[in-house]
């Protein structure tokens, strides 16, 4: 039942590399990761490829297949023509380690720079109560598996290495939104942080991150644009600020929901 397919896989390291050709057997029901493993088993025992769960849940096997950032374990071989060449390259935005393995520590450094959840002062641990409607928006962003496909496809850093310092990327924008929308988070400077330290203004909402997210998180609509609008409230909209002064009402109510 197997068919013979043409694969091109990038092999190399920091010093350079190239696309190497492989003729390899593909069986019904297989995904791209299976084929990479077959290449490893039959021809190239030292082919470096990261993987873990083979179920689209660990986010380890991110690579680019025919130019599109994807999870190798979720890319069904049946989506390609039998005669089609399948090209597999490492995700482009991050430094190469070897073959299909890249160093994604950029993302961890950015996550570390992000202020963590701040517990509400007036509640002791164990007293937190939240209603489902209040936490729902944040929960969508908790589905993230940290595959960093959104980070690698984002042109802000993919095409402009120099922006890496100023820009945290969509994965961290959903984190910012998650915490800013969290009913019990006590920080009130998350908009300011997103704009000034995360580089939210660099995003031009072209939505590639949303298109590529394997968890189908609506990154742009539900997190980035929502945060941009919140930044407008804080920074750019004089009427909102005036309104808050006059009516003494704003959305920054005390976090407690007791």
């Amino acid at each position, binding site marked *: 039942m197997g068919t013979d397919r043409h694969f091109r896989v*990038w092999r*190399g390291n*920091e010093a*350079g*590399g190239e696309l190497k050709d492989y003729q390899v057997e593909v069986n019904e029901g297989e995904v791209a990761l299976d084929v990479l493993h077959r290449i490893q088993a039959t021809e190239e025992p030292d082919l470096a490829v990261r993987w873990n769960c083979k179920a689209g849940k660990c986010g380890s096997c991110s690579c680019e297949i*025919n*130019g*599109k*950032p994807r999870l190798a374990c979720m890319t069904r071989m049946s989506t390609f023509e039998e005669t*089609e060449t399948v*090209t597999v*390259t490492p995700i*482009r935005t*991050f*430094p*190469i380690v070897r073959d299909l393995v*890249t*160093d994604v*520590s*950029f993302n*961890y*450094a950015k996550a570390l720079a992000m202020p963590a959840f701040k517990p509400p002062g007036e509640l002791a641990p164990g007293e937190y109560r939240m*209603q489902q*409607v*209040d936490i729902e928006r944040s929960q969508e962003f908790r589905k993230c598996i940290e595959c960093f496909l959104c980070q690698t*496809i984002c*042109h*802000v850093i993919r*095409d*402009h*290495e*120099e*922006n*890496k*310092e100023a820009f945290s990327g969509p994965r961290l924008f959903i984190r910012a939104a998650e915490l800013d*929308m969290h*009913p019990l988070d006590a920080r009130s400077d998350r908009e300011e942080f997103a704009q000034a330290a995360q*580089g939210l*203004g*660099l*995003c*031009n*909402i*072209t*939505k*590639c991150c949303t298109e590529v997210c394997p968890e189908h998180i609506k990154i742009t*609509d539900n997190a980035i*644009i929502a945060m*941009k*609008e*919140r930044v*407008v*409230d804080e*920074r*750019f*909209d004089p009427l909102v600020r005036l309104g808050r002064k006059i009516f003494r009402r704003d*959305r*920054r*109510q005390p976090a407690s*929901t007791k």
Partner: protein
Amino acid sequence: MTTTSAKPSPAMPGGPRPRAAIAAKTLRTDRWWLPSLLSGGGFGLFVLYTGIRCFFIQESFWVEQYHYLTPVFSPCISEKCPDNASDLGQWLPASLPFFIPLPILTLGILTVFRLTCYYYRKMYYRAYFMSPPGCAVNEPAKKYSGETRFPLIFQNIHRYGWWLACGLLMINTWDAVRAFHGADGDVAGGFGIGLGTLIIWGNLVMLWGYSVSCHACRHITGGRLKHFSRHPVRYWLWTKVSKLNAKHMEFAWASLFSVIITDVYIMSVSAGWITDLRIFN
């Protein structure tokens, strides 16, 4: 782009480290350029049409018999407008310098509103600015500062465009109510329906859909709240707006075309090229 020339970036762990040396601008094999070509072309046609209409065909925007006013020229506030078509008064002179279009107010508001729209931004950044030309396709520009500086930082005024557009929408709604007008004033109190009335209403629904599904509207109705549970009405509104918001792109295109269709129809009836199909009176 060969991406091996990574500049040192002190804040990044590991410092300057090369990426995989892949020279191709993209390895995508599908037709990634097609959506941008279609949307960029479609939008270009709309701009061309509106431009010609507003600058060079400043007539045939009103059908006296049935009270049809085209949305492109509404509100009609110039002395050139027939009295019946200018409920808001005539505060612009009949002839304006050639570089000012007759519906300057309408055109101005719509330009601000649509150009700062989150969907159109995505569309024209991709199709016209090539930023990026497609996902995982290298951007040709060397430098990129996104929406952090002048002029693009002004995209942040979108919500003001939305408020203005809502005002315009009220006027459009009034126009649509007036379009229930029959030729014979003695029949049913002057009530009438024609194909034009239906087209005007179809367009109105699309315009409302576009404006209500706007991201700024979603934010204003409830998106900015921290606790939905304390604002049940606004939460309910937010859920409805969010549903429509998911279709914002569709509304953006549908309303673009419905405006053109409505305008062409009213122009044709007004100029006498066709006669309105009457359903009643």
